[in-house]
Structures are given as structure tokens and as C-alpha cells.
């Protein structure tokens, strides 16, 4: 039998009972749609988490004071004072042997900030000139903190875009204006470009002042953290270990387990975040796959009913010269047709669901090629697997019995 004949025979009989065809397809449409939407959303959220973390700086290693200790509560990160500016300078001096590119000591706290009648509570970070490189800061206007500002402990401030728009109705005129951080006047010298992000550690919601100024103002000698950019192409974990053991010698500690600081690298952070999202994606896709399975059983159900309903027709076709092979092929073609068309509609549904979810969740998400390939493959597979049994049943009908069947 010709391929074109098979296709027209299949479409003819599917057209004869439109309602049944539509119902048989529905399960596949919903199943494929759900799988596609969830895979696409999962992948996009993984990408967006990774790119947000990367926007905080490339090849980033962060040292914070205190250590994670089991079996007892120790001071919260930042509450301890074991890291100093001197530590950061020593690490910077050893930069080439530690394979690091830049070191940024930082002091971080929260303060009330006012401009005339407007005020906000935001994160204040005391940083050095290397902060700009280490955290991949770009300026939308003005300039970043310079070495002379550090040397003179100048009262200058660089604003994050969120803070800037909170304090100034017109951010373009903010440069040169005065803001008050805990009643001390600071001159605005620059505004950073937005990185995007939300939550407690929003990189857009902060003010950066010279580290020396911050230590003076808040009366501290320590730093809250030291951020390090490793050289390109080196293994972050290796650098992390090297920096760690170097810092242990600086602190005169020989036992790694009693370290008074914690080091984390960005890769771990991305890894952890990715793991969470991919686990979630896998879980949701699993649930969607079950609905796909149910859809497949639906197809089998309908095809079985069809075989019984069309017993006479099958007998007639065999009497007129259709071999068992032709009958099997015909019924398989019908069920594959059902699932592939259902799959195609499912891709459309999945695309719509993805677009809606992306809009609602305010993230960029689009159909991915692997998701579509998977959907088409799976739906054709379902057609073959769940169509096989009914097709076999049809093919093995004896033409005599089938013709007699009322």
C-alpha cells in the first residue's frame, strides 16, 4: 500500500468521527503542553539564576569571618572581626602566586539615608577601587570611587540605581548633590547601572563609599568580607584552597577545622542554585509525564473501542485484499497521526503556557529545541506503543467472523 494511501485512509477514518478524534487527542495535547512548558520554564529559570549570580562578578571567591560550626551557635557572619584590611593587602601582594586578579576588602552595614525629606534604609558598603572590577560594576553616570578618595577618606558616595531612584526624582541631576548617611553629609559622585535582582541582597539597592571613610565613620578596624577575583581559566576550588591556607598562616592557625573564616566560591553558589531548580524541574516534568502516560492510555482505549466498532469494516478490508500487515499499518498510522497532531497542538499549548508564565513570573522564557524534539519523539512513541495492541487485535480478526459481526 502506498504511503499517501495510508495517510488518506487514516485521515478519512479520523474525520468520520471528529468528536472521538478530538477527545483522544486531548490527553496528548495537555500532556505534551505541560511537559514542554515545565521544561522550558525550568531551563530558563536555571539560566536566569546562573546569569544573575554571574552579574555579581566573574570568578568570584568570597571570604567572610566566622566559621560554620556544627554543634553550637557561633557569631553570625559579619558579627566577628577576624578579617582585616591588612589581610586583604597581604593577599593582594601574593596575588600572582595565588592566581588571583583582584582583591576587594569590604565593610558592610545598613544605615538610614536621607535627602531633604526623603529617606530610606539601605545597605552601605565601604569598598576600595577594586570593588568596581571584582563585582563587575558599570556606571550609568558619574564615576566610581578613586584612590584619592580612599587616601583622603573623602565623604563621597556611589549609588545603586534603586537607591538613586528612591532618593531622587530625577536621577540624572543626582551627581554632585548631597545625601546624609546617619547625619553625615556625602557627595554623590556616581550612579551604577542596574544588574537586576530582588530580595535582601539586591545588588541595585546599596550605596558604596570609600572603605577608609566607612571604617572611620563606624569606628571599626575590621572588614566584613573580602571578595576576590580569580584569574580566568583557573579552577575556582583550587584558588579557594590556596587563599584559605594562606589566610590560615596569616592568622597563625595550623588546624583547618578551627579556621576563623569561611570561603565560598561562586561556582558552588551557581551549582547549588542550579541543583535546586533542576530538581524542581525534574519533579514537575515527572508529574507532567504521568499525564502524558494517561493520555497514551486514553489513545489505546479509544483505538480498542474503534477496533470493535469497526469489526465489519476490518473484515471487509481483508476480504477486498488487505493483508494483516496492511491492517496493522493502517491502525498504527491512525494512532501515530492522533499523537503527532496532538503533540503539535501540545507544543502550541506549551508555548502559550510558557509565554503566560514568563509574563506572570517576569522572566524571559522561550520554547527550547530539546523540549520540542522530546515532545515530538515522545508523542510518536506513544502512538506506536499504545497503538500496537489495538492494531494487532484488528489484524488478527478473521474476515469471515468480522463480516458476520453485527
Amino acid at each position, binding site marked *: 500500500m502506498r504511503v*499517501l494511501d495510508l495517510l488518506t485512509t487514516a485521515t478519512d477514518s479520523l474525520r468520520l468521527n471528529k468528536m472521538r478524534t478530538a477527545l483522544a487527542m486531548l490527553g496528548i495535547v495537555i500532556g505534551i503542553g505541560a511537559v514542554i512548558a515545565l521544561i522550558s520554564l525550568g531551563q530558563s529559570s536555571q539560566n536566569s539564576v546562573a546569569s544573575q549570580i554571574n552579574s555579581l562578578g566573574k570568578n568570584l571567591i568570597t571570604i567572610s569571618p566566622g566559621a560554620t560550626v556544627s554543634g553550637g551557635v557561633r557569631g553570625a557572619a559579619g558579627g566577628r572581626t577576624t578579617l582585616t584590611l591588612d589581610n586583604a593587602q597581604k593577599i593582594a601582594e601574593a596575588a600572582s602566586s595565588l592566581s588571583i586578579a583582584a582583591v576587594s576588602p569590604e565593610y558592610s552595614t545598613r544605615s538610614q539615608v536621607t535627602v531633604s525629606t526623603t529617606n530610606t534604609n539601605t545597605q552601605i558598603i565601604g569598598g576600595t577601587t577594586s570593588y568596581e572590577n571584582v563585582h563587575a560594576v558599570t556606571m550609568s553616570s558619574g564615576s566610581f570611587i578613586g584612590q584619592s578618595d580612599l587616601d583622603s577618606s573623602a565623604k563621597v558616595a556611589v549609588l545603586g540605581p534603586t537607591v538613586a531612584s528612591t532618593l531622587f526624582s530625577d536621577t540624572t541631576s543626582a551627581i554632585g548633590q548631597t545625601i546624609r548617611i546617619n547625619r553625615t553629609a556625602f557627595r554623590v559622585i556616581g550612579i551604577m547601572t542596574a544588574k537586576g535582582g530582588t530580595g535582601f541582597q539586591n545588588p541595585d539597592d546599596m550605596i558604596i563609599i570609600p572603605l577608609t571613610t566607612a571604617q572611620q565613620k563606624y569606628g571599626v578596624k575590621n572588614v566584613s568580607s573580602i571578595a576576590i577575583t580569580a584569574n580566568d581559566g583557573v579552577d575556582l576550588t583550587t584558588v579557594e584552597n590556596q587563599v584559605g591556607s594562606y589566610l590560615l598562616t596569616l592568622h597563625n592557625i595550623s588546624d583547618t577545622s578551627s579556621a576563623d573564616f569561611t570561603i565560598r566560591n561562586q561556582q558552588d553558589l551557581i551549582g547549588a542554585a542550579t541543583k535546586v531548580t533542576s530538581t524542581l524541574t525534574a519533579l514537575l516534568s515527572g508529574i507532567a509525564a504521568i499525564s502524558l502516560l494517561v493520555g497514551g492510555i486514553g489513545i489505546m482505549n479509544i483505538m480498542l473501542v474503534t477496533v470493535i466498532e469497526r469489526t465489519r469494516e476490518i473484515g471487509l478490508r481483508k476480504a*477486498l485484499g488487505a493483508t494483516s500487515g496492511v491492517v496493522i499499518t493502517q491502525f498504527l498510522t491512525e494512532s501515530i497521526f492522533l499523537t503527532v497532531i496532538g503533540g503539535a497542538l501540545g507544543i502550541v499549548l506549551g508555548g502559550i503556557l510558557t509565554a503566560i508564565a514568563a509574563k506572570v513570573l517576569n522572566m524571559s522564557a522561550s520554547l527550547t529545541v530539546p523540549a520540542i524534539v522530546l515532545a515530538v519523539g515522545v508523542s510518536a512513541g506513544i502512538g506506536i506503543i499504545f497503538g500496537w495492541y489495538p492494531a494487532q487485535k484488528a489484524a488478527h480478526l478473521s474476515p469471515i467472523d468480522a463480516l458476520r459481526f453485527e
Partner: protein
Amino acid sequence: MLMIEANKLRKEYHIEGVETVALADVTFSIAKGEFVAIMGPSGSGKSTLMHILGALDQPTSGTYVLDGQDISHVSDRDLAGIRNRKIGFVFQSYNLLPRTPAIKNVMLPMMYANVVPAERTERAAKLLTLVGLHDRMGHRSNQLSGGQQQRVAIARALALDPAIILADEPTGNLATTQAEEIMHIFRDLHNEGHTIVMITHEPSVARYAKRVITLRDGRIVSDQKQ
């Protein structure tokens, strides 16, 4: 030239250990161009004989030579091919594809024989004209009367110019006038040289045939020319 040579055809059924002999060593032959009616009361074995003659079933023993080919022991696959090309079926209940245009029904055997589409359409149209349905080609099977449906079935039987036309009670579901129309078509086909084997239990229908074979209890009890 002989179209059908049946030699000691025997068919036994075993149902739950009980043996039933449906056909008991039936021997006869039918020449090309004959119009034969096979008669007999129900249970006489005429349906079984028709299934074997139609290559829908195979005899337990004996040989059946159709158009020079012994088909008593061929594979299912080959039987399908023989049904397709050598036999034109006309059933009591027409057996057209449901809600399918008349022309598509006539094209069906040609599709299984891999005839090129253009030729199928042309030939189907010609055959439908022959049975007087040139104005009903696009009508769906459910839009046709019983007599019209049976005429479509006859056109379908002729689709691949078969060796024999095998009709199983072709007028059983029809009113008298329509039955007569159908029998006139068979008579015309016979006059054109077609070989026709018709199963019936109605003498009024059998009288169109030129020879009547009567079965009883699986045996031929009479074989008369008329």
C-alpha cells in the same frame, strides 16, 4: 476453460470436542463464463463453500484450483492477494465503507492492488456508470438506497476485473423491484462473459442462473443446467 475446479473439498469444525462436517468431499467444476447458483437450506454447507471459494477460508482436505492456481494450501498473505485480484465479492448487506463516497468505495480494492490514483478514479467512474450510478458518484454510502448501495458493491467487485464474481445472497436485503434490478445487472454481466457464482436460497433469484447446484448436509444433491 475451467475457472473453478473443486476436488473432494472437505471442511470439518471442531467445537468443544464435537466434530461437525460442514462440507463432505464436494467435487465440481465451473467453466469460464458460467452463471451458477448454489442453493440449499441453512446448514447445508453453502456458506462454508462460499468462504472456501472466496479464499476467505481453507478446506480441511481436498483441492481448490481457481483460474489455474491451486489455492487450497497457500499462506494468509497470498490468500489476501488472491481475494484482491481474482475474486469480486458482493455481500448480502452490501458492506460499503460507512459514510464514504460511492467512488471511494469502488476505488478501495484498487488501492490495495497499488493501482495508480489517476487510473483508480477513471476506472471507478466508468464502473459506476456501468451500474447506472453516474450521477451518484460523490454520494456517501448512507445517502444511497439499498439497491443503489448494492450496485456500488457490484461496481467495487468489478474493480480489478476478477476471475469470478462471488455473490452471497445479493438480493437478501432488497425489495422485489430493487432485487430485480440487481439481477438484471448480473444477467448483463453474464452476457458480457463474466463468471458468476451466486449463493441464494430464493428460487426466484436462482432462476436467473444458467446452472443450479443444490447442497444438503454438506453434499451436492443436484447439479442442473436450466
